[in-house]
């Protein structure tokens, strides 16, 4: 059992958890993730480690309640426990001093981008962060990112906060303003990562994305997380999760991630009914 030291909402259905996991805290590097299972009948899901505290022996994850498992997670409070947390999994982000690095986070993807932004800053990069959300409430970790970024640009689809528009539009504005960008990290919804890749391809800017395919074990054993990159198949859990954005087949990823859409919708309905006491 892994104890939750702190649980707090930081956005709509977006919850931050500090979890006691000293060994993972000690070993994890930016870009790595954990697989967790909420309870005995639960599924195994991958979640990126947003931060860690070695002294305290804790890791931080940020979860958006979308499916049944993430909704169950988000119902947990400080003092509760999670049954299984395994990690750190995946390869760490490749960090070097590129020069100027733009870190783009879309929605809860910002939580995944955050540790890598920190590492890029520590490696000597000028870090520009663009963090997008549908509305103001979905823009997360702005203060945390300000601490490790030279510039931070929040964007919202509806203009309720910061730049009115998509993260790609802000990125294009920066490029056109003459900012020499050497590296882009983009993490968020697949459509957003694809749009960023399409944009930076034209400018020949090295771009990395972190992929979130469906996984079971997270250690290379099942092959469920296979992604097509440059025409070759890789396992995101052991070969990734970060890949060259210009080579990723995003369309296949999007389709593969919809594999269990019917079952997921069904289990969310059942879960919600249970919460509302309808006893289904």
């Amino acid at each position, binding site marked *: 059992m892994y104890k939750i030291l702190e649980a707090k909402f930081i956005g709509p259905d977006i919850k931050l958890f500090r979890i006691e996991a000293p060994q993972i805290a000690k070993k994890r590097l930016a870009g790595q993730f954990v697989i967790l299972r909420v309870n005995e009948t639960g599924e195994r899901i991958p979640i990126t480690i947003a931060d860690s505290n070695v002294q305290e022996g804790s890791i931080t994850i940020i979860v958006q309640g979308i499916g049944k498992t993430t909704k169950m997670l988000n119902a947990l409070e400080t003092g509760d426990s999670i049954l299984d947390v395994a990690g750190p999994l995946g390869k760490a982000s490749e960090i070097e001093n590129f020069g100027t690095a733009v870190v783009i986070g879309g929605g809860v993807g910002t939580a995944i981008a955050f540790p890598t932004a920190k590492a890029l800053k520590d490696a000597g990069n000028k870090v520009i962060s663009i963090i997008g959300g549908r509305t103001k409430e979905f823009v997360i970790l702005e203060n945390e990112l300000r601490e490790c970024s030279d510039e931070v640009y929040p964007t919202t689809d509806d203009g309720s906060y910061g730049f009115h528009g998509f993260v790609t539009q802000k990125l294009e504005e920066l490029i056109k303003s003459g900012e020499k960008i050497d590296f882009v990290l983009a993490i968020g919804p697949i459509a957003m990562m694809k749009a960023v890749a399409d944009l930076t391809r034209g400018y020949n800017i090295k771009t990395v994305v972190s992929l979130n395919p469906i996984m079971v074990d997270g250690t290379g*054993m099942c092959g469920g997380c296979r992604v097509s990159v440059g025409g070759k198949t890789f396992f995101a859990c052991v070969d990734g999760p970060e890949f060259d954005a210009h080579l990723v087949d995003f369309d296949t990823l999007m389709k593969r991630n919809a594999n269990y859409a019917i079952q997921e919708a069904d289990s969310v309905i059942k879960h919600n009914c249970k919460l509302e006491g309808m006893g289904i």
Partner: protein
Amino acid sequence: MSEMTTKERMQIDRIQMPEQDPQVRSHNFLEVNYGLTKEMAVEEANRCIRCKKPLCVAGCPVAVKIPEFIIAIADEDFALAAKILKEDNALPAVCGRVCPQEEQCEKVCILEKKGRSVAVGNLERFAADWERENIGIQNIKVGTPTGKKIAIIGGGPAGLSCAGDLVQFGHEVTIFEALHGLGGVLMYGIPEFRLPKEIVQAEIKSLQNAGVEFVTNYIIGLTETIDELRERFDAIFVAVGAGLPYFLNIPGENFNGIYSSNEYLTRVNLMKAYDPEHYDTPMYDIKDKTVVVFGGGNTAMDAVRTALRLGAKRAVISYRRTEKEMPARVEEIHHAKEEGVEFMLLTAPLEFLGNDEGRLTGLRLQRMELGEPDDSGRRKPVPIEGAIDTIDIDVAVIAIGNGSNPIISRATPELNVNKWGNILVDEASMRTNMVGVFAGGDIVTGGATVILAMGAGRTAAKSIEDFLQSGIW
């Protein structure tokens, strides 16, 4: 009972293992074989002619004292039979079910030349089940504590059998397991209907009672490295299994509905996706669908028989060669046929077809014929020119084996591996090139059987003991 003569023993027919009716069992996950009754077991045990120089023991990868435990059954001292078994085999109820005895102990049984061997596997299962069901699994005899600490990486058959021997030598054993549950392939791979998970867990529990410590959710190479483990353990046994599924490498392989056997079986067995009312792991709905499994081994049989139980309309094996070349146990092929599995022999997949949503809809396949024998001595399948078919299928499961998992070798560059990533060891001692580090099971041999992995675990345990005694590498 007065002593029987050899002639009398040889007149007894081999007792048939009672089974669930194929039509019934193909729709449930309950165990196929019921096990022998007490009377059946005693009668079967009486068939053993008690050779002066028994060949069966040498035929067993873990060298179970087969004649001794069989005589104990004949004497109706079932507790003693179980005790004898456990001196050499940490998982007798498991092995009694999944060992390929017909290739091992039963193959060399002298009676096999005169008809049918003694049913060693069925008797092993009987003794282990009898103990568990009647008096509870008795603790194994733990050795006088030595203060030596050994880390075992991987809670599958190799690691568990190694642990069973090491605690008998008096060492402190910790098993590190990457998944949340122990048992490795016994839990995620072999289905409930062939190996009930409760039985696996009961045998693992007996190791825990003997003092073996289990640490789950712990991935050596990531959560902690071998170098770090070496600082706090006197010896390390790497038994992580194969664990990186091969795919066919044909077009369309990333369509939804195409699984590795590892993923498909893990979802169903470990994560219990066959019970969606109680468990959250999703599975593509197989009811009334056509499922094709590629491969001819035991895993392929497990996958295809699982598909039937999940309600598949057609559950089909596609194999490049003929039934004769199939590596699966004869019993598994026989059971699969009885249950209604179709065998599409001499076929090789060319391409998967899918729809706009990215879901699998069909398969193009090449008909084959057997040509000249290849290096392995098996006749090589060659394509029949122009004989290409397209069939509608909904789910594909690829069960053509596993490569070696890269996590440990990446984190341990010093550890010598071959070009396929298998850890290199001295075969007799299971020693790797790193002092104090041993390895065995599928990570060394590539995909093999439970019992061969267990045999490797025992060899490693003995070799670790020699190393700890002598201190010499």
